[in-house]
């Protein structure tokens, strides 16, 4: 049994190549000067440097969290380079001036940087190591008042907006990695949808870590004003290195009255090899503030990569009648470890949240769901529904569920359902007897298992996610 299952899950990582490009890489190490250097490179205003330094001082007093259900050697923060940027040939005015080597890299990854390219109708901001290298459809979006581009640029073009919202959802001292990010973040996407505007196309950021032993600390800030709505997609890959790379991002979403933000991620960072060597440490803080009445924040994630994932996209439901959603598929194979889930913090009246989490473990991996549902005393009539399903492939892997439920209002209704299943030999034999091979059978069972989440994804992403899972689990059934 295991042999076929093994083969099915062990597909080579397709995005493991390195781009040969001249980069401006900062020396390894972290101290106040590193932070001043990053800030200076970006020519940042004084207030932002202070924001960073304050975070750094606070970070020095903090301890790395020990509670996640993952194991890894202690990270040497002095062995990481905190800034790496491809050297621009000249100042970038348009897409045509992007280094052709970069264009080829993203073409290879299937990310179109030409506006006329395949994924027409999606605006893309591309982040390579520490900097944003290109944003498509900028002009077109600007016509309806949408600001979409790199956060470094927004610091200069829209300083008031950045200053107003940065760190309001994930405060500087929120947690160890978020605080580190606040000190050293290099780039990320900024998106502002003004009052009443429905964003006419999906917005997307594509992250690529290229340089070995570099960290990626991106910072994304999305603001939807009253009545605005946006669907935002995020994709990530990294080359194959034997060393671990740290990715500690912070994403902040703010939804004002009647605003709607949908944030979808397909995470395919390099996961390390079959012995667990190398791979990305993905320690990410994502949080949305449903600030206004009737606002809605929806997270959909498909997590397939990373050696370790530590991530809890959360919703703070502050506005009355606001809605939070979390749909997640987390796949682990080989020696991958994932501790992922969500937090739904109900503050406003009649706030509602839905959690659908599907964990799939294969190989020797360890997959945990960790979720918090908190109903504050003010959240009269709050309602939560959580469903956590785990699927095991083979007999060397494990799955755990850690639900935390805190209810401080008697009128709230909270439901939690959980299940564990296993792909059985008899199921595979049944498929085989109908002419369907093991790989296709597993892919069909998995896709069926993940259906509730996949149908939340935008079309292109759903297709991509389905394919990705197929690759990911190839070789794992036997």
């Amino acid at each position: 049994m295991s042999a076929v299952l093994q083969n099915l899950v062990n597909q080579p990582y397709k995005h493991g190549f390195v781009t040969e490009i001249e980069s401006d890489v900062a020396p390894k190490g972290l101290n106040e000067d590193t932070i001043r250097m990053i800030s200076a490179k970006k020519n940042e205003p004084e207030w932002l440097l202070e924001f960073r330094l304050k975070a750094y001082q606070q970070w020095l007093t903090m301890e790395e969290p020990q509670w996640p259900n993952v194991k890894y050697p202690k990270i040497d923060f002095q062995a990481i380079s905190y800034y790496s940027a491809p050297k621009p040939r000249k100042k970038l005015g348009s897409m045509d001036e992007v280094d052709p080597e970069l264009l080829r890299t993203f073409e290879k990854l299937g990310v179109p940087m030409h506006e006329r390219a395949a994924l027409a109708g999606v605006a893309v901001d591309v982040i390579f190591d520490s900097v944003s290298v290109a944003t498509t459809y900028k002009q077109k979006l600007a016509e309806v008042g949408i600001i979409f581009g790199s956060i470094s640029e927004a610091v200069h073009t829209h300083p008031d907006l950045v200053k107003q919202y940065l760190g309001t959802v994930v405060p500087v001292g929120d947690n160890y990695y978020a605080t580190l990010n606040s000190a050293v973040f290099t780039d990320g996407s900024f998106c502002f949808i003004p009052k009443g505007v429905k964003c006419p196309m999906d917005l997307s950021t594509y992250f690529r870590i290229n340089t070995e032993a570099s960290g990626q600390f991106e910072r994304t800030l999305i603001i939807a004003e009253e009545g605005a709505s946006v669907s935002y997609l995020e994709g990530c890959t990294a080359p194959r290195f034997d060393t671990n790379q740290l990715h500690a991002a912070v994403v902040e979403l703010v939804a004002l009255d009647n605003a709607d933000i949908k944030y979808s991620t397909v995470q395919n960072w390099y996961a390390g090899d079959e012995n667990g060597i190398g791979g990305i440490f993905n320690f990410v803080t994502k949080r949305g503030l449903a600030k206004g009445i009737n606002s809605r924040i929806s997270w959909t994630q498909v997590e397939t990569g990373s050696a370790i994932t530590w991530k809890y996209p959360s919703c703070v439901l502050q506005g009355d009648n606001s809605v939070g959603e979390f749909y997640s598929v987390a796949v682990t194979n080989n020696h991958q470890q994932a501790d992922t889930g969500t937090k739904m913090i109900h503050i406003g009246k009649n706030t509602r949240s839905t959690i659908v989490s599907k964990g799939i473990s294969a190989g020797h991996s360890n997959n945990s769901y960790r979720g918090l549902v908190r109903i504050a005393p003010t959240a009269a009539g709050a309602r939560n529904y959580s469903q956590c399903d785990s699927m095991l492939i083979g007999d060397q892997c494990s799955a755990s569920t850690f639900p935390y439920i805190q209810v401080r209002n008697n009128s709230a209704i909270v439901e939690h359902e959980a299940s564990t299943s296993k792909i059985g030999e008899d199921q595979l034999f049944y498929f085989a007897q109908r002419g369907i091979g093991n790989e296709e059978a597993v892919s069909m069972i998995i896709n069926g298992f993940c259906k509730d989440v996949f149908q939340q994804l935008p079309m292109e992403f759903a297709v991509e996610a389905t394919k990705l899972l197929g690759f990911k689990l190839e070789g794992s059934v036997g």
Partner: protein
Amino acid sequence: MIYQNSKPLLEVRGLRATVNGIEILKGIDLTVRSGEVHAIMGTNGSGKSTFAKVLAGHSAYEVTGGTVMFEGKNLFELAPEERARAGVFLAFQYPIEIPGVANNQFLRLTYNTVQAQRGKDELDPLEFDDFVREKMKMLEMSPDFLDRSVNAGFSGGEKKRNEILQMALLEPRLAILDETDSGLDIDALRIVANGVNQLATKDNAIILVTHYQRLLNYIVPDYVHVMESGRIIKTGGKQLALDLETHGYDWVSIEQRAAAGA
């Protein structure tokens, strides 16, 4: 029906098989020709179902001796899915539940896989929908079967109908029906048997594995084989099934032992 000069489809010679090291099949000989319907009868534990699963290639069973040729090819050189694509079909005694996978998707995938193998056109979802609904009428199945997960939460009778529906879609050369009659009420039995009869042609063959004679009132076999302790101990025409019904399985065993002792 027995046809003169029809080609052997399945030739089993001296087949032995074990499960967990225990020998279950102890030398089976059987020849099935195109157009024929064979019934294999026997008590629980006689090895009937094991024989069916070994032919389909279930990995829990190890073949320890003998040969099986299917249309002149060594069946054991083919993986289970290759056997299925070559036209060996097993209607499961206990059809497997596959939660989350919609029946219509599953049926279309299996249909198209086998069609592709035969160099025939595959059907897109809309074409397939028309096609499968037509087949379902024959088995008096309600269309909501298509949207449900494969066998999940199906009643025993529904599961068995779903098996015969798959047989109708795949048009196998050799269909092995493993206790398809068990758990069916009399109406369901009639519907399933009618379905099987409509699918029998001079180019395919059917092996019915069953305990009871009652199925054979509906699907009339050309040959009846009695299995005991992993061997076929007696072969006869359809009358044999009726005799078994009257005298019980012991009657054959005693007769065999008497013959052996004589």
